[in-house]
């Protein structure tokens, strides 16, 4: 088979088998194989996404650095009001000059594709009784019986031996994938991005595509994917959503609606914590306690940045 991807097959199968073994210690000797194998796929997602966290943090940091560039950005927007192309060109120049580019970059998504493909091959190998990497022998036999809510991990919607249960589970997973993609992107569009990036026209097109086109694409590709790959995909989507939710709430991009919301909230909090001094002494006693953890958090965040 593909010799270039061999190391990836080893990596993917090794992570899965390691999780399977570790979960065996946790759940006991004769624990449920299905649960262990399903969780080992989720474990694979967790490992990959944890590896990717530093990249994400880097992106957030450069997004925060944008605050300093805001006056320049507004100037550019004003200057090239009618020329969106020139506007984005100047914006990219500005980012480069200041060595802070808030955009995530294209390569990481492409880099994930081989991992996805490797998982696909490893799971297909289970169905066809072909060992890949360290997933062989007894492990292969036990993985062949593993089910996720009654659906065989290596079965697809279209495979001849898939039962009604498998079909139901794949359909539900495809719906889940579409829904999480939609919610994640919508949240980012509505709350997470600086307002200048979203002209109405673009927003409408985006939502149309997310509502109609994506479920179709997921459905067409999803029926060919083994249940295990769908679990991987769904978990990744869920992780992305969680990560984004956290950032939008706690660390929003300067200039985005979420940023303004947080600023308002903080202002309100400051006002509230300032006011009660004239009220009962009891409330003033509480206030420093509320204030303190917030003040402690901020320097610790800055320290991390400097490292």
């Amino acid at each position: 088979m593909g010799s270039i991807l061999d190391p990836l097959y080893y990596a993917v199968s090794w992570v899965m088998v390691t999780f399977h073994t570790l979960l065996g210690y946790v759940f006991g000797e004769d624990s449920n194989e299905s649960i262990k194998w399903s969780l080992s796929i989720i474990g694979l997602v967790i490992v990959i996404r944890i590896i990717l966290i530093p990249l994400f943090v880097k992106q957030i940091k450069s997004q925060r650095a944008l605050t300093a560039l805001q006056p320049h950005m507004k100037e550019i927007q004003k200057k090239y009001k009618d020329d969106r192309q020139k506007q984005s060109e100047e914006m990219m120049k500005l980012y480069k000059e200041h060595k802070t580019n808030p955009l995530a970059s294209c390569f990481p998504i492409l880099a994930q594709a081989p991992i996805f493909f490797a998982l696909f091959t490893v799971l297909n190998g289970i169905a066809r009784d072909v060992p890949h990497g360290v997933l062989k022998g007894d492990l292969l036999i036990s993985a062949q019986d593993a089910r996720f809510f009654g659906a065989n991990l290596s079965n697809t919607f279209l495979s001849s031996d898939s039962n009604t249960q498998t079909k139901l589970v794949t359909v539900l997973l495809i719906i889940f994938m579409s829904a999480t993609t939609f919610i994640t992107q919508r949240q980012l569009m509505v709350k997470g991005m600086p307002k200048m990036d979203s002209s109405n026209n673009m927003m409408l097109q985006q939502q149309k595509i997310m509502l109609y086109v994506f479920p179709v694409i997921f459905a067409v590709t999803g029926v060919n994917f083994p249940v295990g790959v769908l679990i991987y995909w769904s978990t990744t989507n869920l992780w992305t959503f969680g990560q984004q939710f956290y950032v939008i709430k706690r660390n929003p991009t300067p200039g985005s609606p979420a940023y303004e919301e947080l600023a308002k909230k903080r202002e309100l909090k400051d006002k509230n914590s300032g006011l009660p001094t004239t009220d009962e002494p009891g409330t003033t006693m509480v206030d420093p306690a509320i204030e303190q953890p917030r003040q402690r958090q901020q320097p610790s965040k800055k320290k991390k940045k400097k490292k």
Partner: protein
Amino acid sequence: MRKIFALLIKFYQSWISPAFAPRCKYYPSCSTYASDAVSEYGAKGLAMALWRLVRCNPWSHGGVDYVLTKGTKTPIKTATTSMNGRI
């Protein structure tokens, strides 16, 4: 071959990319660059496009980077350049 490639990119730009947040660090975006590069240089353009994708990584600062024409080495400014920050 070049036409098929251009169509694929066109499809990507109008039906797939808009559903995701902008992420490209360069202007024009990697997909527009790829389309320009392949139509100007063919197979060599494909290699250029791949190299651009590799350059569009978390450690790069991005910037403005056009495909240059074969003869006069002037930047190709495609009219249909996609929106800010798309792949």
